[in-house]
C-alpha cells in the first residue's frame, strides 16, 4: 500500500533536517503504529506525506500503490486515497461542517471521474456515520470545528475519514486530548473502517490507544529515523520502560 524509501526532509525556511532516511512499508489491510519521543519527526512524517507546505524533501520517495505521492498537490494525494487525521483539527469559521464534508466528498469523486453524490444520499450517509460516532445534527450545522471540544474535533476527523473512505489513513496523535470514553468511541470508529483494502498508520505517544486499535506492526522513531520495528509487544515495552532503554540499545 504505502512504501517510504530513504526519506530525507528539512525545513524549507531553515537548514534544520528533520527526517534523516525513513524507510517504511505498509501492506494492504495492515495497521502500523509509530511511537517515539517528542521531536523525533513523527508529525513531520505525516505532514510531508499529506503535502503540507514548509518542508523540503531532499531525498527519497513515498509511493502509494506504486504512485509517487511527493510530486502531487495535497488534494491529489487525498483523491489518490490518502487521509490524515490531524493532531490539531483546524477551525474554519464561516464554513459549515456539512458544506465542508459535502464539498470534500464531491471533490474527491470529481477527481476520480465519478458522479457527484446526490443531496439525499449524502444526507443519509452522513446521518448514519455520524450516529455511530455520537455526532449530533447540531454539530453538523456549526462551522468546521469551531467551538468543538477536543473530543468532538477528533470524532469529526473520524467522521471525515468514514465519509471519504480513503485507502491509507494516517492518524496523528488522535488520542491526544481524549478522555477514556472518547478514546473508545474514536477507536471503535477506526476499527469499523478496518478492511483488507485499507491500511492505517497510527502515530501515538502512548500504548493505551493501541489497546483499542490493535496494530500489526510497531515502529519506534527517534531523531528522524525508524530505529526499531517489532510486534505489538514493542509498544508494551515502551509503556513499561520508556524510550531510554530502546534508544540506548540502538545507539
Amino acid at each position, binding site marked *: 500500500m504505502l512504501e517510504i524509501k530513504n526519506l530525507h526532509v528539512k525545513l524549507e525556511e531553515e537548514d534544520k533536517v528533520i527526517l534523516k532516511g525513513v524507510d517504511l512499508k505498509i501492506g494492504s489491510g495492515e495497521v502500523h503504529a509509530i511511537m517515539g519521543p517528542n521531536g523525533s519527526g513523527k508529525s513531520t512524517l505525516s505532514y510531508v506525506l499529506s503535502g503540507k507546505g514548509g518542508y523540503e524533501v531532499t531525498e527519497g520517495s513515498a509511493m502509494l500503490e506504486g504512485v509517487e505521492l511527493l510530486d502531487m498537490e495535497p*488534494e491529489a494525494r*487525498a483523491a489518490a486515497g490518502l487521509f490524515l487525521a490531524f493532531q490539531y483539527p*483546524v477551525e474554519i*469559521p464561516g464554513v459549515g461542517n456539512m458544506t465542508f464534508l459535502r464539498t470534500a466528498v464531491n*471533490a474527491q469523486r470529481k477527481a476520480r471521474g465519478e458522479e457527484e453524490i446526490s443531496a439525499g444520499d449524502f444526507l443519509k450517509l452522513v446521518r448514519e456515520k455520524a450516529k455511530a460516532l455520537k455526532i449530533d445534527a447540531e454539530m453538523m450545522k456549526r462551522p468546521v470545528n469551531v467551538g468543538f471540544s477536543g473530543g468532538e474535533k477528533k470524532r469529526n476527523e473520524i467522521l471525515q475519514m468514514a465519509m*471519504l473512505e480513503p485507502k491509507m489513513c494516517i492518524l496523528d496523535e488522535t488520542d491526544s486530548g481524549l478522555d477514556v470514553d472518547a478514546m473508545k468511541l474514536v477507536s471503535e470508529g477506526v476499527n469499523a473502517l478496518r478492511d483488507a483494502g485499507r491500511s492505517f498508520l497510527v502515530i501515538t505517544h502512548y500504548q493505551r490507544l493501541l489497546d483499542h486499535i490493535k496494530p500489526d506492526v510497531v515502529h519506534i522513531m527517534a531523531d528522524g529515523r525508524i530505529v526499531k520495528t517489532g510486534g505489538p509487544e514493542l509498544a508494551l515495552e515502551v509503556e513499561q520502560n520508556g524510550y531510554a532503554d530502546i534508544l540506548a540499545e540502538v545507539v
Partner: protein
Amino acid sequence: MAQLQKQAQEKTDALAARLGSLDLAAGGFAPAARKAALARLESMGLPGRRDEYWRYTDPAVFNAETASESAPLIVEKPIFTDKDKVRLVFVDGVFDAAASDKPELAGVEITLLSQAGAQDIHWASALYGTLEAAGQKPVPRPFAALNTAAATEGLLIRVTGTAPKPIHISYRQNSTTSDPILHHCIKVESGAELTLLETGITGARSNIVMEAQVEAGGKLHHIRPQGRSHGKQLLTHIFARLAENTLFKSFTLSMNGRLTRNEAVIEFTGDDAVAHVAGACVGDGAFHHDDTVFVTHDAERCESRQVFKKVLKNGAVGVFQGKILVKAGAQKTDGYQISQSLLLDDDSQFLAKPELEIYADDVICSHGSTSGAIDETALFYLQSRGVEKRVAQTLLVLAFLAEAIAEIEDETLAEEIRERMEDWLHRHERA
C-alpha cells in the same frame, strides 16, 4: 500668500466648471432646499486630497466636469427574482415607466422627484436636503450638497404601515457617459416597515443620495448589490435619522468598479434604536472601494454595528473610514465597528481609519480592523480533504465575508447575495 490665493482661485474655478455642467436653472422640487444646498456647496468647495476624509480616495473623478467614459455593460442576470417585489426601473438615471411595475402596486406612497414639483408633498419638502444638511457637520460632504442642489430624479417614498412587498429600485446603464444625480427620500412613519432593494449600475458616473427618516417603532431594511461594471465611478450617500425603537439595516455588496465611495451618515435621535450598516466587497485589479461611515449616538440605549469586509487582489485598493460619535448623555450606547480585509496578494492595499469619540461615561464601544492573507493552515486542511486549492480559497473567502452577509435579515435575499458572490469568486478563481 500668492500661492494660497492661486489655490483658492483654482478651487473656485473648478467648482464653477463643475456647476457649469449641471442644469441648475431647471429648478425642480424643493427649490429653497436646492438653493440652500448650492450655498453650502459654494462655501465648502469641492474636496481635494488635502481634506481629511479624502486622503485615501482621490475625488478628481467626481470633481471633473463630466463623466469619463465607462463601458458598462456586463450583462448580469437579475440578482433577485421579481416575484413579490415592486420593481421601479431607472435607465441612466431616467425613470423607465414601461419597464417598471405600477408604483401604486407597492401599497405605499411613491412619487417621482421629477413630477413632485407641482405637488405639495409636505413630508418630502420637509425632508429633502434636511438630513443631508445636518450631515455636513462635523465632516463636510460637498458631493451630497451638490446632489441636493442638482438632483434630476429620484423617488419620494412614504410608508405608513407594513409595506406589503419590497420595493426594488433597478438601475440600468445604456450610455457610456451618463452622469445621473439621483436623490431619494424615504419616510417610514411610526410603526411602519419597508424593505428597499437597490440593484444594478446607475450610470457611467453617478451621484446617489438617500435620505431616510424612520419614525418611532419603524423599520427600514436596505439591501444594495451595486451592479458590476469595471469602469463605473459611483458615489453614494445614505443619511438616516432614527427615532426611538427603530431599526435600520443597510447592506451593500460591491463587485468591480474603478471607483466607488459609499458614505453612510446615521444619527440616533430617539432611545432604544438599532442601526446596522454592513458591506461586503470584492475587487480584482483596477478597483478602488471606499466605505466612509459616521454614526452619531445622541440618545440612550441605542445599538450601532458597522461590519465591513473587503477581499482584494491584483492591486485592488480598499478604504474604510468609520466613526462612532457618542454625545454626552447617550448612556448605555452599544457601538461596534469591524473592518477587515483579505488581501489575496502583495499588490493589494487596505487603508483603514477607525475612530471613536465618546462623551458619555456608561457605554460599550469597540472597534477592530485587520488585514490578512488567506489562512494557510485552513487552506491545507481543506486541500488535505481533497478540495482543490482554488475552490478551497473560494470557500475561505466566502467564510470571511459571511459576517457581513449575516447582517441581511431576510434569508432568501441573503442567500441570493451569497450566490452572486460565489459566482463572482468562481469566475475569478483562475485569474
